[in-house]
């Protein structure tokens, strides 16, 4: 420990630059982790966090809620599937909304579902953080975060037409398409659509939400529905979220990005410690000659690696924390403590592994070289 710390304190610039490089990389990795999760939640949070285990799109919808339309024939066909325990309609529309507390308008998504007895019908948000579920027309559960922070009691006026909805409850992570989202009764949604476009008749539902009958699994229900007609595209809730166009692209893109960033960190650490080991070859040989065990020198090296990466992780995470509280154009970022733990462990392990190359050189030092002056050599 003594050797490790003394050396670092005498070469602050070098070690400082290394810590800076690692800190920036850690910051980038964690920030993008938040970005990825924020994007995915912002896009498909509403799908992931509503209570129906299975969603049925029309195949033409290409797994996009707004692109899917369930005709009356299709709906009748679906209701005939034996494995179904419960079924409901879901309608979705994007509107221009003006919350009465706000001064500018926002894109507002409305998702209408069949309320049932207590407002918790199929398709309702799974969990509320404030207020209650809608039990009547013109009431809504609103998403938290995003461009506008709804509060219970807010009203939203749709434009044009002036159709008004009141917020009676709040839920986390229920956005669709990165827009403030309101879950209302199906009829409320239907009226909203007609209010902004007088040319249109009553809209058709976009998606059917389904729960399996007793003894039937979600997977079995999906298979049964898809087998019933080629017009159906049934998916479990998780699959529906994952297979929304754009989501898998986002995930694959980020996967590649993380791989590259993740590789850079151990490479930089490994290179640094290899070069530094060469540079102090003479001192290391001298220490070995006067009786320092090789294991002590290696331990000193590894202590430095842990301290440096630890410092980089600390600074990087400290930079990340305030940024993770930001809102980026409708996306609410979040501090991902799981990601912090994951990357801390991974980068420490990779960093130590990368320093083993330098450690090997240290172990190969022959103390006799102190007298001949050969050192570690290049």
């Amino acid at each position, binding site marked *: 420990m003594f050797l490790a710390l003394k050396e670092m304190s005498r070469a602050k610039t070098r070690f400082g630059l290394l810590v800076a490089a690692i800190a920036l990389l850690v910051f980038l990795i964690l920030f993008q982790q938040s970005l990825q999760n924020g994007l995915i939640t912002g896009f498909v949070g509403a799908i992931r966090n509503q209570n129906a285990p299975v969603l049925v799109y029309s195949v033409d919808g290409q797994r996009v809620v707004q692109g899917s339309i369930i005709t009356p024939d299709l709906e009748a066909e679906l209701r005939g599937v034996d494995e179904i325990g419960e079924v409901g309609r879901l309608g979705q529309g994007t509107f221009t909304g003006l919350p009465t507390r706000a001064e500018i308008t926002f894109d507002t998504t409305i998702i209408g579902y069949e309320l049932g007895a207590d407002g918790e019908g199929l398709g309702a948000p799974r969990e509320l953080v404030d207020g209650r579920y809608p039990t009547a027309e013109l009431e809504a559960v609103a998403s938290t975060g995003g461009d506008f922070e709804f509060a219970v009691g807010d009203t939203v006026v749709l434009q044009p037409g002036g159709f008004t909805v009141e917020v009676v409850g709040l839920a986390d992570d229920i956005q669709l398409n990165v827009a403030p989202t309101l879950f209302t009764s199906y009829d409320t949604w239907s009226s909203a659509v007609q209010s902004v476009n007088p040319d249109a008749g009553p809209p058709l539902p976009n998606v059917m939400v389904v729960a399996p009958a007793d003894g039937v699994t979600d997977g079995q229900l999906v298979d049964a529905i898809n087998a019933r007609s080629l017009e159906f595209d049934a998916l479990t809730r998780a699959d529906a979220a994952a297979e929304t166009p754009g989501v898998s692209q986002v995930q*694959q893109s980020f996967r590649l990005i993380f791989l590259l960033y993740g590789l850079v960190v151990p490479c930089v650490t490994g*290179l*640094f410690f290899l070069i530094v080991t060469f540079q102090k070859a003479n001192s290391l040989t001298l220490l070995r000659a006067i009786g320092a065990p090789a294991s002590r020198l290696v331990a000193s090296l590894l202590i430095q690696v842990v301290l440096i990466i630890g410092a980089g992780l600390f600074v990087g995470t400290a930079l990340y924390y305030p940024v993770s509280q930001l809102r980026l154009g409708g996306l609410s970022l979040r501090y991902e403590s799981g990601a912090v733990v994951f990357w801390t462990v991974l980068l420490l392990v990779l960093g130590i592994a990368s320093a083993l190359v330098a450690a090997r050189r240290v172990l190969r030092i022959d103390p006799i070289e102190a007298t001949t002056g050969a050192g570690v050599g290049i």
Partner: protein
Amino acid sequence: MNLALKELRRRPGRFATATLIITLIAILLMFLGSLLDGLIRSSTGAIRAQDVDAIVYSSTAQASFPRSRLDVDVRMQVESLDGVTEVGGIGLVQLGARVPGNGPRDLANVALFGYEIAPKGVPEPPADGQAYADEVLEVDGVEEGMTILLGPARTPVEVIGFVSDTSFNGQGGLWTSEATWRSTLSENRPDAQLADGVWQALVVRGDAELAERIDAATDGATDSYTVADAVNAIPGVEEQQGTFNQIIGVTIAVALVVIGLFFALLTVERLSLYGVLKALGAKSLTIFGGLLVQAVVVTLIASTVAGILVILLDVVIPPGSIPIYVSAGSILSSAALLLLAAAVGCSFSLRRVLSVDPASAIGTTS
């Protein structure tokens, strides 16, 4: 400089690891840049292609086609405005298309546009029932002469030719006559159908400053943009650009620090050599110049390797899985940024080089 280049040639191993790291960073930069380009391109092609001076939406539409409707009165107001030479309607419907030869659940995503004024690279509106398709749809199996079926109503449309860079919202553009668009819309999206003469948006040709004057003339019923502004108004575009550019910026900073670190280490190792060179009469700037040359060469090699790998990546990645658009421009600009970072990173060592005392070459100084 010769000295610096000779060292690179004779001792490549010493520079190899640093070159590898900078190559990784260069790949990252180029990939990020290509990803941003690809995302923007596939979101905004149809708008960028508009060969007009203003695009007009209804004021409550938030620049979104499906939410916008402009009726005949508004159009007449726009047409009668001073300085306006031409007005055309434009409308959009986004549907899944059944392509002959593809599986029953394997639909192509299309953005069907009805238009009056032809965008750049798109011919005049075709006959009813026909369309020009964006070449990205070729990946989905669309061919010239083929009839594809749109939406749940299976509206048939014959593809009579291809155009390029007209995607919208990640979907391939399909360019048709007004009548085809209206009938497709009403058959497949009855809740969004529009009466004759009503368009979702108008495109306008005329003199400058058109956008503000149109909104004033319609008394706030419209929300008009230049083409560039309309591109930025597409949801997500500005945020994507902003976020990506920030990430790219920080990555450049990382490159700068890594290169600076590597050359700082190298400098420390060569202090005695620099002492000798200075004793022989080398100027500090000559020595630093050599360092700079090495940094530039290493970065050039890294950028070249990275550029080749990114191009290969583009070829190897299945189309549609990761939306990158690799262009010479984005690769070259990433390389240029990296070279700048190399030069700046190198300058961390300047002070050290300047302070080397030639007397250090001669034994001790006492």
